[in-house]
């Protein structure tokens, strides 16, 4: 009888303690983005990974109590063709009103949706750490009206840093191989069109490159033979590419089968992940592809990026396939945790001030924000966040080749591409 009473007492106590731990109200993080697209899907996974790590380490310290994070995601489909921006914004508003998140991470996928959504974020005063949309116009709006738009931050790369990465790599190609004839090919969407046009006007034409042609392809286009033949006939040495559609993988297959004697360098999203090696039947050796933020690719010379990549691989059974989004999404959760603990409050204005003061070493390098609430990118992980260029080797490895601070080797040319030096 006495023994039975003790067991019941023990169980009751256990249940009480357990309930008390879980009774701490979770801090909700909203993830409204295009979950049906690779960057959105993997960014959401990266958020889940960070939240799981933080929760298993005890949670977030707020006013003397440890509170867990809870993620609420919503597919706002802003990247899907034919989905109007207002419809995507309804999703953004819905998650804010229904889930009452303390902050939003990842956020809109397309820049058009980000710009239009800034007023909603400002209206409800929810701090947002964006990790996909790249337009610098959001920074301009923040600088012009800091009181209204101060809740919006970007952890990922913006178009300006993106252009610097591309220009830096092109300069390296020119110096190392003497290349100066380029053919531009890009998808006809805002970011890719902007990138290609900016590179043409502000880099290639100003630095003595000869631009032999510039073709833009609508989303879904899948036969690049015409452009490749034009590039071949005109003697292009570099094919500058900018694509985020799955069909762009066809371009690489055609480049290889048609033996176009020009080096592909730029961004082709299907080429970014390790799975591309098998997907494209081990025929992508030599291609230079950009990664928007390190951590999306493990860099041998920057340990935190490797640790994050391996943790992601371990949890989800497959490495990161997108070149843009997951690493800053993971980082955003830690930035938010630090800010909540520093502000010791969930008040949006206090959180914003704490986020503005962020200075931490993360998976992408050193994280600090500028006045436009954009993370500062540079070439040394001790000083700034990093992006990089890698090259597929002939044995299926992704070797970082730029910037020099994390480069793992030199650029090589495929057998049918000849350098001038």
């Amino acid at each position, binding site marked *: 009888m006495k023994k039975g009473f003790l067991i019941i007492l023990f169980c009751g106590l256990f249940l009480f303690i357990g309930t008390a731990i879980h009774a701490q109200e979770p801090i909700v993080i909203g993830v409204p983005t295009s979950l049906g697209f690779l960057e959105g899907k993997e960014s959401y996974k990266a958020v889940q990974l960070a939240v799981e790590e933080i929760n298993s380490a005890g949670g977030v310290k707020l006013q003397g109590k440890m509170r867990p994070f809870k993620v609420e995601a919503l597919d706002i489909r802003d990247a899907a063709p034919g989905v109007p921006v207002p419809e995507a914004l309804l999703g953004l508003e819905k998650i804010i009103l229904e889930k009452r998140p303390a902050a939003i991470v990842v956020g809109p996928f397309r820049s058009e949706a980000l710009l239009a959504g800034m007023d909603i974020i400002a209206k409800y005063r929810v701090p947002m750490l964006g990790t996909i949309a790249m337009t610098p116009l959001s920074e301009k709006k923040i600088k012009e009206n800091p009181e209204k738009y101060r809740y919006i931050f970007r952890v990922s790369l913006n178009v300006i840093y993106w252009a610097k990465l591309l220009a830096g790599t092109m300069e390296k190609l020119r110096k190392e191989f003497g290349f100066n004839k380029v053919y531009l090919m890009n998808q006809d969407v805002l970011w890719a069109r902007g990138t290609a046009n900016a590179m043409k006007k502000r880099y290639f034409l100003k630095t003595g490159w000869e631009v032999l042609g510039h*073709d833009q*392809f*609508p989303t879904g286009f*899948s036969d690049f033979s*015409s452009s490749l033949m034009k590039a071949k006939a005109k003697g292009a040495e570099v094919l500058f590419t900018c694509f985020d559609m799955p*069909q762009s993988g066809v371009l690489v*297959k055609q480049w290889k089968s048609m033996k176009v004697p020009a080096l592909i360098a730029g961004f082709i999203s299907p080429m970014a992940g390790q799975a591309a090696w098998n997907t494209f*039947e081990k025929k992508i050796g030599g291609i230079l592809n950009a990664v928007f933020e390190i951590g999306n690719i493990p860099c041998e010379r920057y340990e935190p990026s490797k640790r994050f990549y391996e943790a992601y691989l371990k949890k989800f059974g497959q490495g990161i*396939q997108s070149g843009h989004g997951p690493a800053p999404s993971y980082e955003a959760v830690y930035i938010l945790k630090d800010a909540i603990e520093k502000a010791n409050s969930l008040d949006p204005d206090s959180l914003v001030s704490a986020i503005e003061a962020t200075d931490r070493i993360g998976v992408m390098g050193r994280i600090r924000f500028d006045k436009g609430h954009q993370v500062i990118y540079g070439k040394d992980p001790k000083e700034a966040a990093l992006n990089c260029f890698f090259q597929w080797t002939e044995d299926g490895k992704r070797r970082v080749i730029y910037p020099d601070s994390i480069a793992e080797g030199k650029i090589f040319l495929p057998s049918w591409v000849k350098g001038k030096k």
Partner: protein
Amino acid sequence: MLLTSIIYGFVNSIILSLIALGFNLTFGISGVANFAYGALYILAGFLCWIFFNTIGLPYVLAILFSVFLTAISGLLLYHLVLLRIRGMVLAEVIATFAIGISVLELFKYFGFIGFEYSLPVFIDKSIDIGNVTIDMQRVLIVISGLILAILLWIFTHHTRLGLRFRGIAQNERTALSLGINSDLVASLSVSLGAALAAIAAIVILPLGTITVESGYDVLINALAVCIVGGLGSTGGVIFASFLIGYAESFTAYYLESHWVMVVPLVAILSILVIKPSGLFGVHKELEERI
């Protein structure tokens, strides 16, 4: 440059005919505009990918199973849905379109998002025709397209089942009075259309990756070719494929790649204004004359 556009235009035309043949066959026989056609194309691609990569079957078996299962899906589509609404054109279009979207969105729901879904090419080589290099997969697409068109002609002209197909296509009531089971033949036509979509997927998808979004493009291309050629006319479909295929290629070479996607839509609009039954269509010819 001209030789390149001629060769790649030819390949592009055959790709369009491969895509449209199944859609056209189903419409020609049963009168059903199967708007789930693009979804069946993608279904075949993913099934083949699963059989080959996840289950580890030999590629040939993976192909056979995926074509067979897609054909069965077509059969089920007819018996479970279309049989009840046959003859109500708008209902058929809405039902098949809804099923198509559901199938495609289900793939997304189950995580088929990303770039790793790709089928291997049959022969990993390239050949030179003049100064134009072309990969063997494209050559095989041309060969497959030609063989399929010939087999389809033999089937519809020299087999009992094929003759029943044509009988239903010509006049369903008369065919019924001669003892041809129109429901059975119509269901087989949907199934065969699905199988043709699967064959097209198996030969075309190795050129790139399998993505849910391409299901919609396939449907638009099939519709464009069939509307321009004339719904139900196989000869018209092949002619329209070459018309649109070469128009796309020459647009890419001599104008801008940017305008290529507009070509099928312009073709649809133009033909609807000039000759709504299509170049070789017979379905509305009488109404047009009136």
